[in-house]
């Protein structure tokens, strides 16, 4: 399988079975609308607006609706209203530009109930900072993968959607064959920094408004789409010790790597990763 790679959304994009320019255009469209660090992005302009109600683009409305749906499906764990919390934790500029250390801002728990979308009109208290990056990268992957016309895949930093089977390397070693749908990994191995003398990362617990103190380093989940896999991986990470049980309850195969390197697999993952798939 011939692969091509390029950088977008702060990570490496790897594609096969599709022209990289086609995928790049999709990522550029999503990134230019939802980057927290581009002042001209729609997200930045919405967050900066002093108006309590303002019109948004169809793309913005679609992403916010998806984010609200994902928040519901994860019991509020994957939350689009944690923009202030992540800035308080220190992630207020492109990752390579983050300062070494500094003051930790105040905790900023979920404000999910204060956001309303009526058609293309967004209503929320001014000052509430939305962060839709919990769903935007996966949406871009799924949109690009939908254009696959032959066997191949689209991967953004290892979060991927596939058309046809593809083998994928896993954190902590080993690999898995994704037969259909998506695979995503969430964790703190790549993006962590220090603030207030403590390690911080981008996976905010909406209950505390602070980076989660989960025992996991990385959680990988197989979903029907990259979006489902990514949302479930984030939720399972934030649930800590309850994560594997939650994935099993929802019928989602998952694999956890602990901070000490211990690997835990859910029942579904353990079964499927060892059984050859039936011929179809």
């Amino acid at each position, binding site marked *: *399988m011939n*692969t091509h790679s390029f950088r977008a959304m*702060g990570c*490496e994009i*790897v594609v096969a079975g599709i022209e990289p320019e086609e995928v790049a255009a999709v990522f550029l469209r999503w990134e230019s609308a939802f980057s927290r660090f581009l002042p001209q992005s729609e997200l930045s302009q919405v967050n900066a607006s002093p108006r309590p109600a303002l019109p948004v683009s169809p793309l913005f409305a679609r992403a916010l609706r998806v984010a609200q*749906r994902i928040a*519901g*499906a*994860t019991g509020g764990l994957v939350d689009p209203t944690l923009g202030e919390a992540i800035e308080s934790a220190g992630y207020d500029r492109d990752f390579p530009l983050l300062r070494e250390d500094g003051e930790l801002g105040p905790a900023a728990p979920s404000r999910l109930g204060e956001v309303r979308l009526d058609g293309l009109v967004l209503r929320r208290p001014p000052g509430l900072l939305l962060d839709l990056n919990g769903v935007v*990268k996966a949406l871009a992957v799924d949109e690009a993968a939908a254009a696959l016309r032959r066997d191949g*895949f689209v*991967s*953004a*930093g*290892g*979060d*991927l959607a596939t058309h046809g*089977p*593809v*083998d*994928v*390397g*896993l*954190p902590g070693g080993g*690999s*898995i*064959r*994704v*037969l*259909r*749908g*998506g*695979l995503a*990994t*969430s*964790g*703190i*191995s*790549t*993006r962590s920094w220090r603030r207030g003398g403590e390690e911080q990362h981008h996976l905010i617990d909406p209950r505390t408004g602070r980076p989660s103190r989960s025992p996991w380093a*990385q959680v*990988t989940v*197989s*979903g*029907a*789409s990259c979006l*489902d*896999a990514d*949302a*479930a991986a984030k939720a399972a990470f934030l649930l800590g010790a309850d994560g594997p049980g939650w994935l099993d309850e*929802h*019928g*989602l*195969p998952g694999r956890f790597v602990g901070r000490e390197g211990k690997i835990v697999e859910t029942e*579904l*993952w353990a079964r*499927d*990763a060892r*059984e050859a*798939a039936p011929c179809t």
Partner: protein
Amino acid sequence: MASESRIERARRRARAAKVALGALTTLVFGVAFVGAKTHAPGHTKHRARPLGAPVSFQQAVRRSALRGGQVAPPVQPPPVVSSSS
């Protein structure tokens, strides 16, 4: 003669009233019978269909749930690695 004639007329009116009352009772019974057969589940001759949620509700529930993918043992070296980004 005149009083007999009044009695006869009264009997005729009574007979007509009985017929009208009987017809009305039959009509009301018929309507209620057909209505019960049609609308009350316990009276219908057709097999009761299982209760089902509306399609729109089922779609909404399906959309709001996360669905699992399918994985299997690997068969070749992976061209890509999944890691947090």
